[in-house]
């Protein structure tokens, strides 16, 4: 059971406490809070405290040296007219809404090909999974920078066919595309979740459908896709949340400036520049809360839309 379905069931389950729960209630309080102590301290000092603090800072002008100065909604008004911020939103949205569906589609296709007792499955699975472990590293971002450079691997291969390729990462129209490709390249993790999900679908469903004369395509649309929809949903939610926060690849590939001409200036990169480049901590905090709201809204939309397409088999 995933974190998401846990959350769902937490909000749903409101029945009376079971006898066992009642009997045990209150008995372990002291022990429980001792066991929870590190987590509770972390929750207050590392998570909730800083969250509230950054909410406060988002209404201030703060550069680390002078004490924060209350400026009301100034930071948010500034965000409205900040063209670079709007651009960074556009870049991030493109990355998320092209990269995530593309990555999940590839993950699903490969998982479907891998499913059902193909020989050498563990080997293939490892090969496809490896990039998703390495993809977040600086080293792979460096590799990407070379591969999609003017004299990089891609253009060397193209030259063998007599094609003179552009400098993919130095051209503003293709730079973001090469970073999206890096994201798609790391499809291994969702693929493994899909594989696990595919294995959960009872074989008898397919057997029954075959007896009834359903073709491969029909089986896919009528059985595989509906049965897999909770897992697709799960992957979608997590990948969207994660991709909005993507940072390292764009930072390394662009040399830290989001270039060329801001074409890879992710929202998080801009936030980093504002906060830790210019020490405009108030503005950076406002941006961080804006990011939280964006992610929250899209996650909520996802959950609402799920009612119409996610199918639960119970």
């Amino acid at each position: 059971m995933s974190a998401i379905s846990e959350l769902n069931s937490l909000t749903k389950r409101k029945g009376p406490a079971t006898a066992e729960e009642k009997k045990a209630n209150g008995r372990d309080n002291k022990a429980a809070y001792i066991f929870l102590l590190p987590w509770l301290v972390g929750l207050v000092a590392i998570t909730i405290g800083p969250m509230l603090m950054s909410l406060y800072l988002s209404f201030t002008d703060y550069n680390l040296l002078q004490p924060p100065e209350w400026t009301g909604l100034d930071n948010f008004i500034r965000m409205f007219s900040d063209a670079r911020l709007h651009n960074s939103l556009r870049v991030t949205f493109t990355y998320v809404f092209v990269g995530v569906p593309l990555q999940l589609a590839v993950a699903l296709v490969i998982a479907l090909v891998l499913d059902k007792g193909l020989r050498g499955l563990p080997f293939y699975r490892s090969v496809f999974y490896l990039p998703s472990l390495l993809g977040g590293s600086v080293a792979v971002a460096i590799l990407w920078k070379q591969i999609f450079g003017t004299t990089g691997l891609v253009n060397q291969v193209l030259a063998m066919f007599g094609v003179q390729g552009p400098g993919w990462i130095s051209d503003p129209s293709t730079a973001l595309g090469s970073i999206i490709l890096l994201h798609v390249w790391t499809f291994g993790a969702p693929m493994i979740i899909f594989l696990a999900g595919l294995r959960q679908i009872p074989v008898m469903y397919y057997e029954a459908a075959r007896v009834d004369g359903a073709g491969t395509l029909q089986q896919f649309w009528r059985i595989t896709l509906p049965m897999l929809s909770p897992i697709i949903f799960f992957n979608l939610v997590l990948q969207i949340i994660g991709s909005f926060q993507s940072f390292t690849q764009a930072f390394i590939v662009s040399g830290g400036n989001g270039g060329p001409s801001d074409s890879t200036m992710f929202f998080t990169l801009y936030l980093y520049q504002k906060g830790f480049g210019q020490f405009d901590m108030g503005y950076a905090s406002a941006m961080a809360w804006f990011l939280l709201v964006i992610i929250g809204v899209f996650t909520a939309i996802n959950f609402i839309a799920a009612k119409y397409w996610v199918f639960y088999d119970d």
Partner: protein
Amino acid sequence: MTTKLETLPTPDKKSAGNGKPTNHRKPTRARESRGTLAFSRAARTKALIKHAILILAGGLMIYPLLWMVVSSLRPNELIFREPGLWLSTLEMSNYTDGWSALTHPFGHYMLNSAIVVVGSILGNLISCSMAAYAFARLQFTGKKLFFGIMLLTIMLPFHVVIVPQYILFSQIGWVNTFWPLLVPKLLATDAFFVFLMVQFIRGIPKDLDEAARIDGAGHPRIFLRVILPLMVPALATTTIFTFIWTWNDFFGALIYLTDPDMFTVPVALRAFVDSQSATSWGSLFAMSIVSLLPVFLVFLFGQRFLIKGIATTGIK
């Protein structure tokens, strides 16, 4: 379960309904046996096509990595015009040059990373398992609320806390120390692992706890002597994921470690990229490979736990 199947088109039902089952069944069986013969041949072709697709796709995915390994063993100028994997000469100078290209030998940064990794693993193992025990086995006021908050923090973007965290740690004087990277782990802020362990502990039979309790064991003892030994697979998964994520962690190190003495591998590599003109890809590749090697080894030996961890809790 059966209700859904009934909504599928079912031609057999119609034939069963027309009252001539014996008449109908014989030709069906004949068609079936002919079908299985054809099916096995078709299945073999299908498997062949699948293998072809997978080898092609897998090769394409892995090729850049292989090419990086081969290129790191080539003289620099060949990297710009040799897309193949054939090695005519073996050039080790990229490795020796890269190793000593920065203020410190590269081993220094590896050691820094290793310290952070080991500290993070210990922190996660201790703090997350304790929290997980409470959530999975103990009854206490506010349990549902806290559990819900814990699940939500898994999805919280870290940018919302990074600015005040930085202010906090810089006021304590912890910038350019490893503490800002380690203390959050000691405080179980990687809630994902708490969740993973809760899931695992729920699968351990409660009879074992009860037996220990009847023998007079308190919670610390049950936790240490009964639960911990049984949750080794979950601890292994946590160890491996923490290793890989911490080893690759760039953002935290970028913010908190600005002194080259304290650089971990990712920030050292970044400094390397920035300091080099585009002509020294060879040594950059060499150090990139050195930096990926530990992750690759962990992947080789810990794959089982990685795949299980992902498949059961579903986070990369």
